[in-house]
């Protein structure tokens, strides 16, 4: 039982940062969902704050999120681990790194890659994975994902020249 997100997006006060902290927390988590949905639908892995201008402003309503609001929103998303900041850009995890990691590991085990070495680049843009959901993922994004596999001892990453390779266990 809840109000669909689409209704909030055409509701004017949704664009003003709320003074009541409980309401504000609700608002931030609703907005996080808006951002993640947008990133997912448009396959945005790496973004800047401006990447989301199309959702954070509504010209029909003549409303937009203030700089202060956007700042809080992305801080909130970082805290919730939806975002990892990387220099001036951010990696947007519309699926948790662990979920991506599972997908990659499943592919590796289904295709007999356990024990072999793959380059990270080949993994996300090679001919072998074109039909996988993780195909097209940027290398630096994939590295964050593979870190979680490394943590659970299912893979190990190492540098080869100036690129990265991974071995699955």
């Amino acid at each position: 039982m809840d109000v669909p997100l689409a209704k909030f997006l055409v509701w004017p006060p949704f664009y003003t940062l709320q003074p009541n902290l409980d309401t504000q927390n609700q608002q931030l988590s609703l907005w996080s969902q808006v951002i993640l949905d947008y990133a997912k639908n448009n396959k945005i892995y790496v973004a800047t704050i401006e990447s989301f201008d199309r959702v954070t402003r509504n010209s029909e309503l003549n409303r937009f999120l203030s700089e202060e609001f956007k700042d809080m929103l992305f801080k909130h998303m970082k805290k919730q681990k939806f975002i990892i900041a990387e220099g001036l850009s951010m990696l947007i995890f519309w699926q948790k790194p662990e979920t991506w990691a599972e997908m990659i590991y499943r592919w590796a085990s289904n295709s007999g890659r356990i024990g072999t070495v793959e380059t990270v680049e080949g993994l996300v843009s090679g001919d072998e994975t074109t039909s996988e959901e993780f195909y097209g993922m940027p290398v630096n994004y994939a590295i964050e994902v593979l870190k979680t596999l490394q943590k659970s001892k299912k893979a190990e990453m190492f540098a080869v020249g100036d690129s990265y390779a991974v071995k699955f266990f």
Partner: protein
Amino acid sequence: MKALMEQKRMKELYKKKGSEMEGEFKKNLKSQLQQFHQSLESFITNNRAEINKNPNLRQEFYDLCREIGLDPLISSKGACSDARESDENTQYYNDIAVQATTVCLGLKNRTGGLLSIEDCWKWVNKLRGQRHSVPLSDLYRAIDNLKVLGNGMTIIEGESKMILSVPMELNLDQRGIIEAAKGTGFVSYDMFHQWNKTRFDKAVESLISEGMVWVDALPNGKIQYWFPAQSLMSS
């Protein structure tokens, strides 16, 4: 080459047959589920007393209902008014009251505990399903019956009837603001020119702190105050 084409043709044939079988299977399953749904419904109606008496049975039964998406609280209003029937009626109103409470509490973090009776009605009927929908007047009576239990759920009378599901009293100014938001869903100070600014701000701020009102800062500097209950909740 020919063998390859034949192989391809067979593959397509299999695929077609496969999706046909899948469709048939889904259809069967659906009608079985429907039948089960119906038998369960008549089971509720016939064995209500037993279900209510036996807590183990009740728990198992509720779990089962939840799994197949049936509201266990379906009862109908009796047509006659002898003693037995009036018991049934009590059950009927109690069930609606429980459903209304479920709706109000379920939406509470979005509305601050305020909900128009019409919206509550729509949600209750959604919960009950079309076949068991109830008239608005019965919902009104069911909630009104809850009055005896204290001030957990009250109806704010006025041009637009609102249900208040938090234990608080609304003062006249707060009620005036809620009333004024009817239709548009928001108020602004210029709608209250007969009030001084402090009086307006005090009332509005108290509603904001209850989570009943959201602030909308317009680009031109004006401020409007929106009630989710009056602008966001209609399902």
